[in-house]
């Protein structure tokens, strides 16, 4: 059965390593924080200027001066720090953030990502996404395998304007976990529980490498 959003987030949480600073994008990526084991040594960065971001505040304790990059009210944990936007993107560009998790409209089998603009539609802007994808050593995309029209979002080349080139390392969708080898394409690492390799093949438009038995995710 295909994963729901929380399932995708839960699977991505398995990618976290202790000692990492992590930036979570808007949407499914934000949910990843909910699946971090208690006491796990990790810190969340939000590019509007906080390290040590905590959970949403308890009702009545919201602080308008304390939000994340999705403009949601948040809290800060002991050891947190606040800083300006130049410092924030400085640490991003200087590769101090070990993992960035982003949503996407399209990902190519060479690691290109498109997630900010659909020609003919109102463009809201790239926000910090271009800085993040241009700088992160490790980028995981969290998204549905297909769009609402049922078309694959895993392509041989993005059709939409790019956010970044050759930067995505891994994609976790409702159907699969895939690694990107820019030379070879999407390498199928895991299937969602009950999802067949054939379905993933059918729904992946880009080059897909299936090697040996592909295990089911363990969630």
């Amino acid at each position: 059965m295909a994963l729901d959003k929380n399932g995708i987030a839960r699977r991505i949480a398995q990618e976290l390593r202790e000692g990492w600073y992590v930036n979570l994008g808007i949407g499914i990526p934000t949910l990843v924080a909910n699946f971090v084991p208690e006491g796990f040594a990790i810190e969340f960065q939000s590019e509007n200027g906080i390290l040590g971001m905590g959970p949403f505040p308890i009702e009545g304790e919201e602080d308008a001066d304390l939000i994340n990059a999705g403009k949601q009210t948040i809290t800060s944990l002991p050891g947190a720090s606040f800083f300006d936007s130049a410092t924030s993107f400085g640490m991003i560009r200087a590769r101090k953030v070990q993992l960035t998790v982003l949503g996407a409209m399209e990902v190519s089998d060479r690691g290109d990502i498109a997630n900010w603009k659909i020609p003919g539609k109102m463009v809201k802007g790239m926000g910090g996404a271009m800085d993040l994808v241009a700088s992160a050593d490790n980028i995981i995309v969290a998204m549905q395998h297909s769009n609402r029209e049922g078309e694959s979002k895993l392509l041989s080349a993005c059709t939409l304007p790019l956010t970044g080139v050759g930067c995505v390392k891994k994609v976790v969708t409702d159907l699969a976990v895939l690694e990107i080898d820019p030379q070879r394409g999407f390498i199928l690492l895991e299937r969602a529980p009950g999802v067949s390799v054939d379905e993933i093949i059918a729904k992946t438009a880009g080059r897909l490498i299936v090697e040996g038995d592909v295990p089911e995710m363990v969630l």
Partner: protein
Amino acid sequence: MIRKVVANADLALDGLTDGMTLMVGGFGLCGIPENLIAALKLRGSRNLTCIANNAGVDGFGLGLLLESRQIRKMISSYVGENDEFERQMLSGELEVELIPQGTLAERCRAAGAGIPAFFTPAGVGTEVAEGKEVRLFQGKPYLMEYAFEADFALVKAWKGDEAGNLIFKGTARNFNPMMAMAGRITVAEVEELVPAGMLDPNAIHVPGIFVHRIFQGAHYEKRIEQRTVRPKNTPL
């Protein structure tokens, strides 16, 4: 003591004229100079170019100046959540330049640091790179980006003193410090204005040299765009 305190937001905008380029601090509605935006609306200056990460929402923040058609051009990284903005942009009344958020921040920072241009990896291989110089450093491509220039910077701080020193709170800091440093004339509104000597000189975020005019703002609304909470008694 160099005199910087002005009585109110209107006086703080003295000399701001039609066609000028302004930087306006804030991220979403967080840390925006509410009093200065209100004064600017009353003042009625037109054909403004605004460098601001976002464009406010309908009826608040820079949305107020969009309603009154005072803004000719926005330079921002993200402009969602604003119907009037969308209408003006699609109709061609409003010019919009979208740039990566880190580049926006660094172009402000460069202006305040006397750095005319720098290189950044953001936007390489995308539309953002069109017409820009691309250069390799250690085999990796970077774009050359320029410092912004702004006639006025309008910023909001938590505390300030009569010497113009500013301290911000939480994520309301965001673009305010770099913009404060970048403005040809920098105007700061603060929630609490104190005499010189009341702030810890180690804790200053923006040294007073960058701030030309300062006043204590009133009636802060501090609207929240996305109120997200968890129920009481939820464990961390």
